[in-house]
């Protein structure tokens, strides 16, 4: 689902970071992400309804379009990362991605029901999202000291999640106020998206000065831990540490069944009214939001490897809770599963980027981060498909047991595979 891309909050930068604040660049990028996520989640929340109710597209067709574009995003990320590194202008590439997504809302408006127009607008949106993610994360690593990466990503993801939580609320309010004027949702989403682009343009230091930002604190690019790669290493895969990180990411991703299934299992188990169903992801997102910054700080203090693995253990525990036979402590279990899902995202999403960042040379950073994200996305896509198939063949119970076993095995392997980030491990903050 879109939880991984969700998330941000924590407008004031100072809640706990008394001694060291995250850099202005990170806050600016967080603000951009917040505003952009309000814009995009507004549309995400209403699009299925608009297509199926407003236009009479069958759910099958919509599911097909959605799956297709989501798959394509994974590959576009690599393109975005590559472009950002090659031109040395991550901000410009990210800005293009943000602008493309914002303009796709106008496409939805102008398509006014034509299926091809809508497909094109959806494609533009996903293209923009794919392009901007890696350069943006590279900007975050370049704008933060290496031992503060966990916190920087924590703050960014928390702001990101805030936007994702506000977006559907805004869309809901708009539809309510205008009696289902979907066009109003698209127009407002477009305006909000443009604000995001403007924030990026004005507040984020331009590409020429990006390096100076990191250098002001400590040259982030030159410090990297556990790497056996010479500083001039051109090829990312030449770094054994990075290779192992990729392998661990792929393994863990391939054992993650997808949030939609978790929510569906919860809904079935408690026979939740359909009206409440969309609130389940919000519950998990709220926990993610609360814990993103603390998890990031923890990662900076004890090393990123362990929180990343603990996060997956939380997910494992969540799957196990789903297997508790009926008649157990009902609502407690529901809250527990959602909370564990939130912990999983808080401890892994930003932390993975913080784990990968220092392994990558500055000039190849966006590409490297994109590679990590792409591998993860593709592995999860495969996992979701596999889980769906297992569910159909053997029923949800057996499928869940299989997923549990796979995740346990993957965590075990990842424990050995993951490079320890010598840079921060054991270093007192």
């Amino acid at each position, binding site marked *: 689902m879109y939880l991984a891309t969700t998330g941000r909050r924590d407008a004031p930068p100072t809640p706990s970071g008394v001694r060291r604040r995250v850099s202005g660049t990170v806050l600016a990028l967080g603000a951009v992400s917040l505003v952009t996520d309000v814009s995009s989640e507004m549309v995400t929340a209403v699009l299925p309804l608009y297509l199926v*109710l407003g236009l009479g597209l069958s759910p099958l067709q919509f599911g097909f379009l959605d799956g297709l574009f989501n798959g394509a995003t994974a590959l576009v990320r690599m393109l975005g990362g590559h472009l950002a590194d090659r031109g040395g202008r991550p901000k410009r590439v990210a800005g293009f991605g943000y602008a493309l997504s914002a303009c796709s809302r106008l496409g939805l408006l102008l398509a006014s029901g034509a299926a091809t127009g809508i497909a094109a607008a959806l494609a533009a949106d996903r293209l923009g999202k794919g392009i901007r993610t890696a350069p943006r994360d590279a900007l975050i690593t370049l704008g933060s000291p290496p031992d503060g990466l966990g916190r920087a990503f924590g703050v960014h993801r928390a702001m990101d999640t805030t936007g994702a939580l506000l977006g559907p609320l805004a869309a809901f309010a708009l539809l309510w106020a205008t009696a289902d*004027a979907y066009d*109003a949702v698209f127009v407002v989403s477009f305006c909000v998206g443009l*604000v995001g682009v403007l924030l990026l343009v004005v507040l984020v230091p331009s590409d020429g*000065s990006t390096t100076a930002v990191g250098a002001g604190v400590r040259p982030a690019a030159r410090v990297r831990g556990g790497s056996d790669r010479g500083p001039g290493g051109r090829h990312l895969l030449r770094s054994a540490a990075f290779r192992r990180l990729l392998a661990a990411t792929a393994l863990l991703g391939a054992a993650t069944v997808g949030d939609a299934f978790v929510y569906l299992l919860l809904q079935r188990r408690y026979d939740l009214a359909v009206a409440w169903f969309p609130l389940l992801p919000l519950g998990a997102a709220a926990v993610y939001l609360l814990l993103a910054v603390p998890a990031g700080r923890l990662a900076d203090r004890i090393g990123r490897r362990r929180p990343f693995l603990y996060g997956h253990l939380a997910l494992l525990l969540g799957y196990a809770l789903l297997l508790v036979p009926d008649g157990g402590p009902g609502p407690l279990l529901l809250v527990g599963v959602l909370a564990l899902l939130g912990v999983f995202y808080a401890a892994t999403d930003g932390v993975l980027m913080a784990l990968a960042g220092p392994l990558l040379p500055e000039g190849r950073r966006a590409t490297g981060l994109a590679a990590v994200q792409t591998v993860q996305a593709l592995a999860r896509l495969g996992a979701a498909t596999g889980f769906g198939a297992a569910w159909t063949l053997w029923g949800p119970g057996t499928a869940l047991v299989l997923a549990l076993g796979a995740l346990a095995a993957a965590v075990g392997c990842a424990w050995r595979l993951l490079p320890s980030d010598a840079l921060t491990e054991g270093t007192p903050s």
Partner: protein
Amino acid sequence: MTRRPTRTRLWALALAVLLLGCGAAGYTLRAAQRAGASRPSADASLTLDGTGERLFVRDTATGRVALAGRDGTRRTGGPVCDRFHAAGPTALCLQRRPGVPARAYAIVLDRRLHEVRRIALPGIPNRARVSASGRVLSWTMFATGDSYATSAFSTRTSILDLRTGYLVKDMEQIPLTLEGRRHHAPDVNYWGVTFARDDNRFYATVSTDGRTYLVEGDLRAWSARALRANAECPSLSPDGTRIAFKKKVSDDPKSPWRLYVLDLRSGREQPLADRRSIDDQVLWLDGRTLAYGHAGDVWAGPADGSGAPRVLARGASSPAMVR
């Protein structure tokens, strides 16, 4: 710190944000006004009363219930409904409520089309049926939330008995007999109920394990048993001997169905002459003619499989014949 953006750039940013905010607010206000203007009150002169057979439809342009004349004229003055059916002295209007998540009202109307009862439900209106006497009602809502795992929407079907006022919000728990055995499964879904003249026997579609069945049910005994596989959205003929239904004939998502008529005594099926894929619960205009919505218009054709379909009402859906 980093190089700060200049004061000028910050002012420009503030101005741009202000302008965009005004634009968004202005558009929203206009949309809200547009919505207010298009919500007319129902016209009191349009009622179910009258002589002879009268065809009511939902007028697509206005979303309101209309009386369709034989000469193609139309009197639009009824309530705004997304799905409509009427029989005897009762009309049923399913109305979607704006906003997310999808919710709807099932509104029971009397012969003057005045509201008698209003029931709020989750989902998207899909099927509506009033028994010939007007005393028993049923409707089906799509439940959007369940669609994550499967490509199909799941449904919630309700039955309301006006004689007792008793409402079954979701008939899923009715004891079902399938192929001679009591069937328990979490994926049971019902839709498209049609009632017999005795206001007790009914027919409906049930889906489970990826297959659909025609079921015959008994309201008083509260039980149902599957009659045959692959039949959706049944509609019982006025004499109670035949059932028109849609049958899945193709895996092509663009044209999966074809309309059939089943003779309940002989068990023989007869396809209609209309070869198009119709997704609607058919209406028996009389013992020989069927009407149904397709591609924005209401069509009619002979029930015996002969002839050809003709347009009954342009820009309309939800046909209902009141006698």
